């Protein structure tokens, strides 16, 4: 491969969905999937995954912990459509039905390094009180037709959501050839530190 004239740049994402903070719910699991633009293609790693069910810790730590690893490498020609991770959290309700507890999405950080993102989660609201009641009763709450909806802006104006809980994701980003293709995503201070190290 001609490294001098790369035609793609690579973004390597390591990290994990560390856990969540849903004060009211327990026994949750989460699904994630990456949403990216047309010019992006995963070269290795899992694009989507589903975690184990985590119960809330006893005692002082109320957070749910999944520590669900993410590992994926993207190649791309164009930063447009930078990958986002869309996370949806599910868990049983009072009647034991599996219902959605939150959707959320966040862009994969642009800069190399370690990043921790806390993603606020939300769920779509029922369209009416009656709907709300029946959905509660039947355990069939409104869900997005596609969890990837939360990573898109289009058409969101028709929905109403309620926020609940957060999910913490940590990313370790490595990029390759971004600079060579003319995309400078490294902040100046990090860069200076880097050059300093080099020097």
């Amino acid at each position: 491969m001609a490294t001098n004239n790369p035609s793609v740049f690579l973004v390597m994402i390591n990290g994990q969905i560390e856990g969540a903070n849903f004060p009211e719910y327990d026994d949750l699991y989460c699904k994630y999937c990456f949403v990216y633009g047309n010019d992006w293609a995963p070269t290795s790693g899992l694009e989507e995954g589903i975690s184990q069910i985590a119960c809330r810790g006893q005692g002082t730590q109320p957070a749910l912990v999944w520590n669900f690893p993410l590992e994926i490498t993207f190649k791309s020609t164009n930063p447009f459509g930078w990958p986002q991770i869309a996370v949806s959290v599910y868990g049983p309700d009072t009647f034991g039905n599996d219902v959605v507890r939150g959707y959320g999405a966040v862009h994969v950080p642009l800069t190399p390094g370690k990043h921790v993102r806390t993603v606020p989660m939300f769920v779509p609201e029922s369209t009416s009180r009656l709907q709300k009641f029946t959905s509660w009763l039947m355990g069939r709450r409104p869900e997005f037709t596609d969890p990837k909806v939360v990573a898109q802006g289009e058409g969101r104006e028709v929905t109403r959501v309620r926020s609940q809980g957060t999910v913490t994701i940590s990313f370790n980003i490595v990029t390759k050839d971004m600079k060579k293709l003319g995309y400078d995503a490294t902040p100046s201070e990090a860069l200076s530190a880097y050059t300093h190290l080099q020097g």
Partner: protein
Amino acid sequence: MASSDLREKMRKKRRALQETLGRVREDADTQVLVATDWEMSKDGERTAVQEPSGSEEQQVATLKQTLKAQRMKRRKKLVEDTPAETPPEAATGASEVERGPRAGESRTPVAAASSSRRSPRDLPPLPASSTLTLSEGPMKRRMVEKLKAARSKAESLLQQEALAEPASRLQGLRDRDPLTRFDTEADLGVRRRDDGAAPLVGRVTFREVAHRGWRRAEVDSGLPTAEEAYNFFTFNFDPEPLEEAAEQKKERRFVEDRGVEEEEEEGGGGGEEEAQVEDGGEGESGSEEEDKEEDAEGRSEGAPLVEDQQGELFIDETAQDFLEVKKAEYLGYHSRVQRESEVLFTPSLRTVPTSCKVPENMQPRYLEEEGLYVGERPPVSLANQNILENRILQQDEAKKWFGDDGRVLALTDPIKQSSTRPPLFNLEEDLDPALQTVYRKALKTRHASRYVAGLGETAGRCQLDVDVSGLIFSHHPLFSREHVLGVRLVQLYDQHLNRQHRNITGLLTDKLHGLRNAVRNITDLHGDRGLNVVMRQRIAEYRLEVRNTRRLRDVEQEKDRTLLKSTLKVWKEMKALREFQRFTNTAYKLHLRKQEVNQSRDEQDFEEEIQMELVELQGELEEEYQRKISQYRQQLEEWKAWRKKQKVSSKKKKKKKKKKEPNEGDKDDEDEDEQEEKDLGSEPPKPEPPERQELSLLEQQVREKAARIRRKPGEPILVPEVTLSGNITPNEQCPRGEFARREDVARRSLFVKVLYNDKEVSRTDRRPLGADFRVHFGQIFNLKIANWPESVRLQVFEASGSSSALLAEVFVPLPESTVLTGSAPPQELEFSSSQRVTFNHEGVGSDVPFSFEADGSNKLTLLTSGKLSCCVSWAVGENDIPLAPPTSQTPGGIHGALRQTDAIACIGASGLSDMKRLSKWAAESRLDPNDPSNVVLMQLLTVASSGEVQVPDYFRLEQLQEEFNFVTDEELQKSRRFRLLTLRSQEVVEFRNYKNVPAVEREVSEKVFQDYEKRLRDGEVVDTKEHLDPHRAVVAKYLKKIRESVMNRFLIAKHHFLLSDLVQEDEVPSIGVLGLNIFKLAEPKRPLKPRRKERKKVTAQNLADGNIKLLVNIIRAYDIPVRKPHPSKPAVASKSARSFTEAFVAAQSSQSALHGNDWPLNQVQVRPFVEVTFQRSVRQTTTADGPNPCWNEELELPFSAPNGDYSTSSLQSVKDEVFINIFDEMTFDITEDDRERGSTVHTRIEKHWLGSVKIPFSTIYLQSRIDGTFKVQSPPVLLGYSKERSLAGEGGYDSVLSLSEGSFVTLFITIQPQLIPGESVREKMKEMKFDSQEDERLLHAAEAFQRDAALRFPGRPCLTTVIDISGKAVFITRYVRPLSPPQELLDAFPNSPQEATELVARYVSLIPSLPDSVSFTSICDLWSTSDQFLALLAGDEEEHAVLLCCYFLAMGKKAWLIIGTAIPEGPTAYVLTYEQGRYLIWDPGRGQYYGQYDTFCPLQSVGCLINADNVWFNTQVYDAPMRMGFDVSRSKLWKPFFSRAFPNPGLSSVQPEELVYRRVDKVAAAELQDRIEKVLKEKIMEWRPRHPTRWNRYCTSTLRHFLPKLEQSRGRDVGDEHRLELQSMLGDYRISGFPLNVPFSELQPIVEAVYSTGVHNVEVSNVEFALAVYVHPYASNVLSVWVYLASLVRTR
């Protein structure tokens, strides 16, 4: 069970006791109440009497207390007796129960006690928990309980050991126990003080001990010693409290229960003793007993266990072993009550007598009765009010809470009964116009910015000093005439002084001199010659300046002169007046000082001045003259030119005339000339030369002017001086009028009001009006201000006597923040008043004409006016800080003439940085460059103009934008990558889902755009090559365009989301659904006849390649043609005429009858298998046997969406079709060597196409599954095969099967996973309202009709309006109109109407279906009219159906359009005809008809029927055509759209009156035929790359010969004939082949159809092919294409 008996008994007893007690209590209660009442009144009396003596009050108090204590005691007994009931006091009393009051009742007292002992972290025990746990594991529980009980005892022991604490736990409990029962009475605080400490300590220690015990056990937990083992069984080791909180909770409860129980036992024992010991203890023992009963009852659920336990286990003994029995410490009830009564007070519920509430010796006063308004008091319940009053009365200053009427003081109820805002009815309708809301622009409140900024710190720090020093009247009504003159004199004098001070005349004169000198200097220096342009210009400028200055000076001088003159005149008048009236009122005196001047020098100066002026004027005049002269010359030139022209033209005329009349004289000519000149009356006048002005005249003018405005030479300079040194005649000597005036003046006084922001803030003292009409105030007002100053106003008031009148108002300009007190100059503000005042004395009045002359002429009218001298400035605070608001807030600009000279004022401070404006301003205002104050500015200007600072001439919003444009727009446009990205984002078809746009420009190849650009280029060019037919090509283009426009609409709709697109939400289930669900519960788990369940639908978005599979379930087939043995004897078939009846009745084919006995029964008839082709992937079933095979196999075909785009829209536009081909597998033994036959099998397998079924993918996608039996499209003739129905069995149900001819295959097709069809898109398209020209009412009705239909029968399609090709909604009946079919069709069978009908149907079916109808129907149906349809020669089922229906109507049939669903098309349109008492259903796309009761009719359901007049919606139970009636007149079955209520308005048809058909073009058809044949042959050779393809010409020509016959018979029943014919010709060939008939639209479908038959796959080496094509043309270019394809294998 003795214990239970006992308990039962006790319960009974208790109930009885309670009943009696209840009665007793009632009595007692009333007694008590009476008593209290009495006591109260007594109390009141007593207090009234004993008030003065303070010491006795205490006695009273104690007495009261004792009384109360007694009362309490009495009551307490009752309370004690009925602890289960709420004492009335407790319910309403002020001293509330400490714990949840009902807890004590609902639980047992024991439980209550235990709960009090519970650690605060524990949750309150659930009442149900005990029963629950007990029922769960009784044995275990029991064990645990016991262990716990033991442990608690052990703990108590431990406690006793470890702490030398005398108060044991039990004692603590004992202490508390009674208290918990009394707590309803006890005040919280008291309780705490009383016994809070001991039990607390007890509690703590108990816990400690418990823990210690636990810890010890933990520590020692090595090997169990004997003691430990013992402990293990006897002690209960406290489980980890944190770990098992819930568990522990329950357990604890049991421990406690037990502990208390034991206590109870002991307590019971001790209680009896105590009863004897304590004096007031009668009740106690009872209560103890009661408690025990309660206890027993309370635990009745769990009681048996506990009860059993006692006798059962060793626990009792052990408990006694470890317990130390002690006498319970118990505080006697009586003493307790007594003690409590000292501190507690329970307000009574009784109404307080009014006398207590009003002051003594006063009757309550009712204001309301006295007629005064008393507001309504807020509603308070009487009981609460009484309690409150009682409570208040207890206090010391009780009385102050009560009003005169003896009630508690209360404000009126603040809550309004009615809502303030009037309710708005009819929200939906238009509001009353009066209530209509009107939009008004937001107004900035005037006060918004009025506060001084930063007020927080500097609040009140701003101070405005208003100094009103005084005022002088310039006119006052009380002025005498002399005053008027005097004031005028003073004014003139002031003016004079002012002018003298400014000395403008002098300045101007100096300037003039300077300028003149300058001019002279220049001319002197350079002489006249050496003047360069600059100098000349400068001189000109100087001259101009001189002229201006001179003019100004003259004006000023004249003013000076007139001023002096008028001053003198006024003085003279005044003197005259004084003499006339013989007294003086004013002290004015004018002195004139004369300054002598040097006569000669003066004269000289004068003369010099005049000369100078003259010279200048001359120069000016000369200039003027020169200018005029030049002007004159120019005009003269013009005139001359004109003149010349004139002459030329007149000469020409003359010449003409001369030619005309050569004999006429000259005179005539001249006349003509003149005439002509007259005609040209617009001749410009001849300019006159200007005249020079006379010099002498000029001099005269100058001198005259000088005399007028200047001091004459030699005249002394007069300097007037006004003094007030004159004597005023004293009052006595004045005449009466004057005296009265003076009196009046003396009466008047004045004062000034200061108004700040229109508010009066202060006023001055009254000051008398002096005789000189001056008033001195000299007052300074300090205004501390918070509001931003907007105006400061001074109002002058004049008062005479007590009345005062506003004279005038003066607005004082607000001071700049730099104007500070001390440094501010006083201002003189003029004021005037237009008040009309007249007097009958000497005062001249105001606004009254008067005259100085005796004859009354020359009248004057003066208005009251004057000057107010005042000063407004900002104060200076301590430390010399100005108390002014910050400058930045100064509102408004500076007005006035200042602007002219002040640069900053003129162009604003910001303008200073703008050099352009500054220099412009400098040029305009002609700054004196020598003025030292302008030096800086001038320097700046020179710098600016020298160009050091370049100011661009334009304005740019984002100045730096240019720098961020890393590339120019053109370059950006040129960039291929950018273009690619742009096109992709525009969703251009070619690039819609383009992946991986290269990162760098060079990697984007030009090729990417080739297709796109070609498409753009080809937009208009018609490509005939591909379409073989120019007309079709045009049509194809047109269709493409329509598709594009529809797609565009669709794309727009795609970006318009509905909630259902994003959020999945269950519908609110209706009762019906719920009911069904309930029934489902009763359903068998594994039903005998399983049905297909609805699968979960998957949205298309999260799919990828390989995820979707097409499942094709091939179940069975009927009536597959069977092989025919090589015929040896040709049979002659007679073609029987068919009739309709044959179609209905099982028609025995002639073939079967003929060949039935040819077949040896054991021979294999046919070995069919099914091959499914989809997206180039092929799957096939196993081979079955016989004409009615059953495969029951599931084939899985992968599906991949175009471009990997799995969005709904993309899936809908998938054009692929599923081909289901039925083949016959033929094996031929090709073992050459007979000897090997035993050991080797060498066969060749051939597959022979028998027929196919085509199902478009979109149909599957939209319907999500296809389930049914389909007719196999088989060729009319299959060489080597025949239909042999009767062979399977002669009788039986065979007749049922063969109701219809043809083969059938039963299929089930679906997509795995199930995709959600693009329903939403269609919904959206529905939402997108199409405009329509239909009547609104009709549209509404149509909508309502459709909605109603959808509501009643959701599945049934109902159409009322459709969208025509221009995108407008049209009512559907407009499409139906009789239209005559092409005449030749009717002429073809003049005798047989049936044949003609079939031919017409065939004609319609030959019009090709829209090749991409799929993408159309899924989005929206576009209905084209029949002429459009015929012009396009393409359309979907609706158009076919409409055309067929129209034809049938024209042929005089009863015909309707059926809107329904069919397989495999889905929603479609068929045609229904009524013939010979039967209903026929026509499939317009295939030209076939079915009887109503035909099993294999593809029409599955009927939604509505349409004809030209009406639309009927099917309201029958069933919608399958077999099970319903088609009689539309029956309103039960069909709901008409137009009814009597809404009659048909007589809609005109959108169809043309007549269809114009183009003539049959046989030549073109022949040409096309050749081309198709050529193409097909090429293709077949192409498909057989590895084998030579030989064409059997002989066979081909034979076949070609057959084809027209086939067309004539429409593919029916000719097979035998021509097969025989063929056979005879090609006897030694094994022929397999078939004719294909397709409507012609494009070449590609024909090629596809040929390919799908797989004829080319024959790989026998000696195979030959025959291919014949026949194109039969019908009217309007409708072509029927026949392709006869055969493979021949030589058998010999």
